């Protein structure tokens, strides 16, 4: 009975306190067990892969077929993408707009593909605070946002996926420019975007990016996903939008942690060059606002709607954004 009472007390303490001493202990364990996990992975990965090949053969076949279909689709749209990208670059040059997302330093991390329990809601990365990773930082793959860092130890970190029911992020519809809040609905499910006004015209296929409100731990312009369904709710005066994440959230191997610090003295924001000045030169070098062990090339899409923020950091070089064009509806 004493053990049960102790357990109930511990649950109560942990549920009611955020980031207490228990979190510190867990961070230490993450570091202590890191080498053990790495060693186990090094030894057993070939066996694990072989085992998965046997037990998941049908799934792999289906996935292979799906990937081939996607590849064919992607190849057919490359020409269209190139054309849209050139138009977008021209518009950005005309506006003198500068992109931030592409210039935020990133650190590439390997996903430790070995769940510790059957009820994990996070994935583990082999990068930690010594690599510049901090709690709350966005994590992405080349295809888009996958989640945010929720736990950091010296050498490891854990990432909450954007499909997690606890996950929420401010987003913007690229076409309409309207904002909303996207939240997860569970593993394998699409996200849901709320707080989008009924009058806003949202079309399935529309690209959705992070809105980067002031104080948000996500910068403006990270690609989140694509609208797949729109359902008006006349009673609430809003629309219920279903959003399919751009990034594939299963079988993640390598990801990039976006070293974005919203509370930095000079936060990185989209800015616009003064109208009286000439067009800014092409980008030269990314700024270094945080310590980076190794940086990955920027991969995310950026918002291509006209920038509104006017904060200008004189130390920031002018840059050009890289947007992934919207998919055809």
């Amino acid at each position, binding site marked *: 009975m004493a053990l049960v009472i102790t357990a109930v007390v*511990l649950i109560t303490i*942990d549920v009611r306190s955020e980031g207490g001493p228990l979190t510190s202990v867990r961070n230490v364990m993450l570091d202590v067990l890191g080498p053990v996990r790495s060693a186990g992975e090094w030894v057993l990965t070939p066996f694990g892969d072989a085992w998965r090949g046997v037990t998941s053969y049908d799934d792999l076949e289906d996935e292979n077929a799906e990937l081939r279909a996607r590849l064919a689709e992607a190849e057919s749209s490359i020409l269209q993408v190139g054309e849209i990208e050139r138009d977008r670059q021209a518009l950005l040059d005309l506006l003198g707009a500068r992109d931030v997302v592409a210039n935020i330093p990133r650190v590439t991390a390997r996903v430790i593909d070995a769940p510790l*329990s059957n009820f994990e809601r996070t994935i583990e990365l082999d990068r930690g605070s010594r690599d510049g990773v901090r709690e709350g930082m966005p994590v992405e793959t080349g295809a888009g946002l996958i989640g945010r860092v929720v736990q950091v130890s010296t050498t490891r970190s854990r990432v909450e996926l954007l499909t997690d029911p606890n996950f929420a992020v401010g987003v913007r519809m690229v076409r309409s420019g309207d904002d909303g809040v996207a939240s997860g609905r569970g593993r394998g499910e699409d996200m849901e975007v709320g707080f989008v006004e009924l009058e806003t015209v949202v079309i399935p296929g529309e690209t959705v990016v992070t809105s980067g409100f002031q104080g948000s731990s996500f910068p403006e312009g990270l690609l989140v996903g694509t609208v797949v369904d729109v359902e008006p709710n006349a009673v609430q005066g809003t629309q219920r939008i279903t959003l399919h994440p751009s990034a594939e959230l299963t079988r993640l191997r390598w990801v990039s942690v976006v070293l974005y610090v919203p509370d930095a003295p000079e936060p990185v924001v989209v800015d616009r060059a003064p109208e009286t000045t000439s067009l800014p030169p092409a980008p030269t070098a990314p700024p270094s606002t945080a310590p980076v062990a190794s940086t990955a090339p920027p991969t995310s899409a950026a918002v291509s709607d006209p920038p509104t923020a006017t904060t200008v950091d004189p130390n920031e070089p002018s840059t050009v954004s890289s947007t992934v064009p919207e998919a055809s509806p």
Partner: protein
Amino acid sequence: MMSAAGRFARFVVLIAAALALQVSAASQLTVAGYVIDLLLFVAVSAGVNGGSDRGALIGFGCGLASDLVVQTPFGMWILTMAVVGYAAGGATHFLVDGGRAARSLVVGLIAASGVGLFVCIAWLLDLTYVTEQNVPIIIAVVGGSSILLNLLAERPIRSGLLIRPNFAGTPA
């Protein structure tokens, strides 16, 4: 006769070994995408082979080790494993004449029940990321793997718990 401190140290080593194996080896070998739960197995096996008190104590230790490395609220696995370890000890009443196969079956059933109990606690705490998992598959994987593990590892577990080899329903 081993001292209380010696027994405690032995229990700690057993649990630490189970934790090391869980994070290094067991996590690599998944069935249908789900992992076997060595710590839950040790807690249940300790109860079935060593009695209620020992099961609850080892279960508490295994739960503590598990809670230190997972993301669910701290104490959930402690509560689950202490309870199933204790309950597993009660199952020894039905196993006076049972062989290793019968004990292994009971270990599997109680381990599966442990997963169910954990999900129930998660439901009480409104942890949807737990309750929305494919619980029947997890129960099957954990229960089935525990049966196999007990068939293979009952002797080392009993040795680690200082249980006499002549199993007769009452722990030594």
